[in-house]
């Protein structure tokens, strides 16, 4: 039995009639402890896919199963790091993480809950910022709080929705390393959504491209058989890196690329006839209509 198994899932938005299918025939299985990256165009439906795994959305057809059990509703056992951090702005960093811990481990003593929060804040190097409000933090720090909140619930699977998308390149690089480091500590299953192929190559065991929408579907998965720790400086010349990148890009730019849409429409050529300037333009104050060839019944042509 697979750990996470998605079979024949499709999902669309809108009412019948004006409905657009966002995802079609999605099949994916992820093993326990695996780090999987899904790479796709923006707007392809990556957030939609992760929302179905988290249970925030229901698939129109097909099934999403975790350990053989159909996912019916959200649950803290599937922790989500949302695309836009989603920290509660009126709670401090500590309180944001504590809210999750109290909710998931209600039986724990206060001291133990506190310890748990502190442990995960330390893990993302945020101990000094524990008392700050989210608006006092940089984007990278906010994202780390969001990661700490997800980790502190000790979920079975972590769903990361473009967690680093809004960050600058340097912060991105640091956080990528941090995520890998944390994953290596206890090997919890991670599904990382990203729009950056290199990010997938640096972090994941396996990269699965998602084709461009509408009607996006997953392409062939590409294993990243590169030993860790991976050196980002080798990214541009190491043949193993280059091979993986080529396979992913070949799909994303080829069969999984943006479809060219064909629109057929009737062309109408202008058919106005030249005006006879010898005739007065207005007749009894009414301006003459322009003459069109398609409307003329009798046309006099000088030969």
């Amino acid at each position, binding site marked *: 039995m697979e750990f996470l198994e998605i079979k024949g899932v499709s999902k669309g938005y809108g009412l019948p009639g004006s409905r657009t299918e966002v995802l079609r025939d999605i099949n994916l299985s992820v093993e326990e402890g695996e780090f999987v990256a899904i790479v796709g165009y923006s707007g392809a439906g990556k957030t939609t896919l992760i929302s179905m795994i*988290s249970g*925030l959305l229901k698939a129109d057809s097909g099934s999403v199963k975790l350990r053989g059990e159909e996912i019916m*509703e*959200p*649950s*803290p056992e*599937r*922790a*989500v790091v*949302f695309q*836009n951090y*989603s920290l*509660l*702005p*009126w709670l401090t960093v500590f309180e944001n993480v504590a*809210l*999750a811990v109290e*909710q*998931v481990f209600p039986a724990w003593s206060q001291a133990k809950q506190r310890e748990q929060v502190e442990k995960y804040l330390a893990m993302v190097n945020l101990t000094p910022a524990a008392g700050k*409000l989210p*608006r006092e933090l940089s984007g990278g720090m906010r994202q780390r709080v969001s990661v700490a909140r997800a980790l502190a*619930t000790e979920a079975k699977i972590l769903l990361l929705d473009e967690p680093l998308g809004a960050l600058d390149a340097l912060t991105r690089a640091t956080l990528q390393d941090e995520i890998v480091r944390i994953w290596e500590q206890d090997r919890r299953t991670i599904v990382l959504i990203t729009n950056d192929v290199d990010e997938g190559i640096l972090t994941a065991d396996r990269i699965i491209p998602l084709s461009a929408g509408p009607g996006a579907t997953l392409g062939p998965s590409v294993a990243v058989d590169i030993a860790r720790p991976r050196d980002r400086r080798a990214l541009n010349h190491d043949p193993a890196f280059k091979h993986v990148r080529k396979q992913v890009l070949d799909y994303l730019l080829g069969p999984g690329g943006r479809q060219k849409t064909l629109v057929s429409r009737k062309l109408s050529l202008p058919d106005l006839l030249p005006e006879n300037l010898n005739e007065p333009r207005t007749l009894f104050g009414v301006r003459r209509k322009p003459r069109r060839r398609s409307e003329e019944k009798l046309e006099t042509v000088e030969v």
Partner: protein
Amino acid sequence: MAFIKRYKLDSLLLPLIGLGAFLMLWLVIAGRIETRKAVDEFGDPVTKTVKTGISPDLPTPGETWKASKPYLVEPFAKRGELDQGILAFTKLSLILVMQGYLIALLIGTPLGFFLGLSKAFTKAMDPIIQVLRPVSPLAWFPLGLVLFSSVKLMDGGGKTVFGASDAAALFTIAICSMWPAVMNTAVGVRAVPQDYLNVAKVLKLSKAKTLFKVLLPATLPYMFTGFRLSLGIAWLVIVAVEMLTGRPGVGGFLWQEYNAGSYSRIILCILTIGVVGLVLDRLMSLVEARFKTA
């Protein structure tokens, strides 16, 4: 002009110019008292005082000051039920406003929450709310009297301490001032970002926890905007209510002084109402700003 700007004089000077222009206009409308020497029909010299001006009944600023002075220099004096210092009256009015306002918030905030949470409830209530909202306090008050005609609380000595007119007064203030709180709360609840709700869903927060930990804090800034506007209306309504009931307070005093023909004190009351309204609004703005940044 550059010189004035540089020393921030314009924020002091321009309001003073505005105030001066306002006083000039007042003087022109109220006119002046002139004493004229004349000879009456018996040939005796007499002095006549005449008031010139567009509206000769309007007291001049000087007269207003003279008539208001006893109420201002002893602001808390109580010479009689309807003859008290201006701050004593203000206090009475404020107490009544606060009672009515609190009732408005206690009813309006939950109502706003339900409206924001349920589309069906909004559809059901919207027509009623839209019709009730523009109704004037003068129209509500008689209905309040009818509704609460049997209310009569007496103290030990058989004196009524809270009667139908008191209940009607609170009812009028509450129902008139409720709507901004209701509407803003509803808008605020609808505007809670889906992200926050998703966090609540993923953590499986209970209904009560979602309300108190997510919905309420996210809605607070909107709620306080509504609360500020509601307080403004409550203060607006108080004058009408006091006039109708004859209760002691700024509005009651105003009406009594009009009936007594001492117009100067009407102006005192108007200015007091304006200043108190401004102060209330500023105080609420401070509270509002505190929640805005959160």
